[in-house]
């Protein structure tokens, strides 16, 4: 049985039902604080880098897109690496926690890949003169996006939760094959996309700003992944509680781990 989020406003919940109960899993306050700090740090580091770096001689202000585009692309790679790791761990031990982490990383990674493609298009139009071109880096990134859309669709359209998790884990493992291909595409093939923005390829005047933004953005993405895994934990606890009521037995604590 799968649950869809029940979008009920807080006011619709009876006051007595809103009282915290030790048996009911709740969103983590510590995680919420971590998220607020991560968002704040990203804002500060982006504003700082934008104000501190001069316009590039060739690219003008569009160079500053780098401070959001590179961290977004890097975080998508990181997210898919985590999908791979947690999928292997799930297949090995069938621990639901690993499945939830893989789901969180996959969903965040997919959103970030879509965002990377959008940012790239916005940069490409004034710089290359086109929104899109079938360049090896762009094409392999689009394929990566489609692989993880498939991963999420597989989870969404499989009724049996355990089977869906198993199949998704297999996609999470084999789908990762494309990630190093995306990363190396700018070196393996002739491409109009510049090589990876690393400390050796970026001008020193932009290097610190880029590094700080990569670090703060990574914190934000870790928060989003943990938050999505948390929502999956609560939804599965709800599924268990509803199922227990229908079957007339005490709720299991499986979703509370």
């Amino acid at each position, binding site marked *: 049985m799968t649950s869809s989020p029940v979008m009920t406003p807080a006011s619709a919940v009876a006051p007595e039902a809103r009282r915290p109960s030790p048996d009911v899993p709740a969103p983590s306050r510590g995680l919420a604080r971590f998220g607020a700090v991560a968002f704040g740090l990203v804002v500060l580091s982006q504003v700082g880098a934008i104000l501190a770096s001069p316009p590039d*001689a060739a*690219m003008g202000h569009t160079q500053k897109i780098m401070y959001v585009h590179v961290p977004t692309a890097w975080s998508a790679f990181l997210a898919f690496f985590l999908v791979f790791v947690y999928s292997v761990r799930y297949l090995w031990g069938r621990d639901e926690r690993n499945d939830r982490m893989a789901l969180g990383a996959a969903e965040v990674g997919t959103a970030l890949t879509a965002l990377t493609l959008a940012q790239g298009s916005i940069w490409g139009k004034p710089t290359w003169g086109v929104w899109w071109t079938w360049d090896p880096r762009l094409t392999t990134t689009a394929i990566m996006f489609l692989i993880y859309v498939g991963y999420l669709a597989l989870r969404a359209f499989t009724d049996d939760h355990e089977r869906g998790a198993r199949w998704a884990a297999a996609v999470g493992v084999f789908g990762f094959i494309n990630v190093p291909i995306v990363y190396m595409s700018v070196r393996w093939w002739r491409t109009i996309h510049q090589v990876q923005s690393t400390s050796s390829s970026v001008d020193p005047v932009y290097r610190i700003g880029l590094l700080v933004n990569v670090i703060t953005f990574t914190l934000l993405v870790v928060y989003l992944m943990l938050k999505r895994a948390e929502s999956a934990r609560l939804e599965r606890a709800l599924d268990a509680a509803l199922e227990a009521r229908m079957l007339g037995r005490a*709720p299991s604590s499986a979703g509370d781990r």
Partner: protein
Amino acid sequence: MATSPDWGLGWTVAAYAVSWVVLIAYARYVGARSRSAHEALLREAHRTEVRS
């Protein structure tokens, strides 16, 4: 390519605007999922208490 000191500013603003809309929308989406599941769990716990 850069033809004036402000060249590319509009594109840069657009890239950051799109990025922040997506990030904030996604953060709100996962927050709403957590909240609604938690509220449903509280209702379920209350219902179980009342019935017992």
